[in-house]
């Protein structure tokens, strides 16, 4: 018993050291907010959704974009629960503010900035990410280069506020310096207690890339202001599966 606990402690300590050696350091003074991600949080290096990071979401069809906005709003709702404003930078706003209420957001606290020029849009996102007074910054842009993404990530590491980059119909899924890459797809909903009609919104959440963490895929539902998991998460281990196949 004694031996096993000390073993666990040693492993934990070693893991921490390895993480530090890999360059991962949880920023001091980062918000310790529950982002309501539940099991998805386990994919991150220390079991919690990093808020001082830029997250990249990729969507292609309009339906996927709507699902992505829903998932992002779910996280945003938790981030905004202590008051404060969120900056949403977009070339053309498609979000219908009243719908955000179901994700626990007060829509009048979101500032929508409509900017058509991509260069100005990126500038605004960066300025927003530098402003510590905001809860979060959402940027709708299709193209994001590596250099730009690194600038955003650096801004975030200073200010400790999360950035969400929603890339709709990107020309290519190029490498960027964002902390994670997500893809959200809508799935057919399940009837609520065999009643006719549409059930709770159901999404397939794919975490394609995460720095120092384990990517995975989950099926979730937005139920009563919370994420609930439909199936047990199957954490994809690309290396292992490839080895097995090979």
């Amino acid at each position: 018993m004694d031996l096993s606990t000390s073993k666990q402690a040693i492993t934990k300590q070693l893991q921490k050291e390895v993480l530090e050696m890999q360059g991962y350091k949880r920023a001091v003074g980062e918000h310790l907010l529950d982002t309501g991600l539940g099991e998805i949080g386990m994919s991150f290096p220390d079991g919690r959704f990093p808020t001082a990071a830029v997250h990249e979401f990729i969507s292609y069809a309009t339906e996927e974009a709507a699902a992505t906005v829903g998932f992002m709003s779910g996280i945003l709702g938790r981030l905004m629960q202590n008051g404060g404003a969120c900056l949403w930078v977009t070339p053309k706003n498609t979000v219908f503010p009243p719908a955000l209420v179901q994700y626990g957001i007060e829509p009048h606290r979101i500032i929508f900035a409509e900017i058509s020029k991509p260069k100005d849009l990126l500038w605004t996102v960066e300025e927003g990410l530098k402003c510590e007074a905001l809860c979060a910054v959402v940027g709708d842009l299709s193209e994001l280069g590596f250099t730009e993404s690194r600038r955003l990530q650096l801004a975030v590491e200073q200010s400790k506020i999360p950035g969400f980059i929603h890339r709709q119909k990107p020309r290519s899924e190029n490498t960027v310096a964002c902390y994670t890459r997500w893809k959200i797809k809508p799935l057919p909903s399940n009837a609520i207690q065999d009643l006719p009609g549409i059930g709770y919104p159901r999404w397939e959440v794919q975490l394609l890339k995460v720095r120092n963490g384990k990517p995975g895929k989950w099926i979730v539902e937005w139920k009563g202001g919370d994420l609930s998991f439909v199936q047990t998460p199957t954490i994809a281990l690309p290396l292992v599966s490839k080895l097995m196949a090979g």
Partner: protein
Amino acid sequence: MKRRYVSIWFRHLVADWLTRKRPELAGAPFVTATPERGRMVVKAVSMAAHAKGIQTGMVVADCRAILPELKVIDDIPGKPEQLLTSLAEWCLRFTPVAAVDMPDGVMLDVSGCAHLWGGEPAYLKEVHGRLSQLGYDVRIAIADTIGTAWAVARYGRIGPIIAPGGNADALFNLPPAALRLEPGIVERLEKLGLYRIRDFIKMPRSALRRRFGPTLLTRIDQAWGKETEAIEPVQPVQQYQERLPCMEPIRTATGISIALKQLLEKLCNRLGTEEKGLRTCVFTCYRIDGNLQQIGIGTNRPTRNAGHLFKLFEEKIQRLEPRLGFEQFDLSAPIVESLTTTQEALWRVAANKNEAAVAELLDRITCKIGNGTYKRYLPDEHYWPERSVKVATEFNEKAQTTWQINLPRPTCLLEKPERIDVSVPLPDYPPMLFRHRGSLHKVARADGPERIEQEWWIEEGTYRDYYCLEDEQGARYWVFRSGDYAETEPEWYIHGHFS
């Protein structure tokens, strides 16, 4: 404070300007003329032509008889006024109050300004010297009243400086026209042998009024300073304004930034002592060649944070064109609101500090990208989806009503509903399948309808029956039927996407 006025008389305004534009005209006798009742009438005369006896109002044919080599240039209507306005603006470097004095002068209210140049003689010398450098032939006078300054500038044979209280002495020997009278009155005075002001100034006022009308008395009183006279400044006097003249012309962005920082510091200090904050701010640069450039900024709430204001200006400094250099900078705050120290302290408290930081961020975005870039939405008491939100007009505007939570609303709303083709089993049933932008969607689940009536007092039209649909792939849509299946087939539209 004793008021002092400077009158500047441009003797050959348009001609001097033309000479400045076309150096080959320098020294040549020329006039500008315009056709009037079938003949060419002189409107402006150059100095050389004036010396030969040519005056405005003469006919060009007569002038040619006097001076065969006279050049005639087409007159530009409205030019004198335009020139005088820009000259008056240029004169703002000498005083904050400058006015156009039609038809050929500029009037400056220089109360309390002259000592900055080391006294009135030096001040007048500077004004005269600078205008002469620009190529204008001017006469200048300074006096206690507008009337006296005007008269001495145009008719005075004495020094240009009329000491305080010396109005009567200065005017005594001048002709009646120096009182800014209509030609008719002057003619009548001269007919009676009254060639000098001293000839009639001692006459009883009632007699003068009876003979020459009340204008004469008003003009006399104005010149003597018994009646106050106001001038209409070419630019409203800014209460909050700071100036910075430069020893040497400034041409670099760094130099301009330093000047701007100094001015902002001064202005913000002053605002601080008066418990005010500015909402708009204009930075004016006077270029050495007489050109004037401005950059302006606006803020969301009153502020006197010099660092923040400088950041807002920083983006715009590169738009200035210094060319040969700026010789003076001027910073004014046209819109100022009260911002007490307690209010400012309130902004600094945890939650409000954030608000201030967000306001400053939004100021920066507005300055960089333009007005109306960002919006905030508030709930509005309408069920009609397009009207259920309104844009907040004020930075701190609070929601009047609460957000609706019990109705299904799509995460993404299309800007305009788009037509879809549907197949519906029965009226009032949701569609079985629909085609949108060329792709077919088979409906697996549906909710609805939710009927939303058109608000007839706002807009005419039929009601909408909204359905939430989910296709076999799991994508969720918000579609509506406009109207019912009475006589004509109703139209179906898609209006949004659920997440």
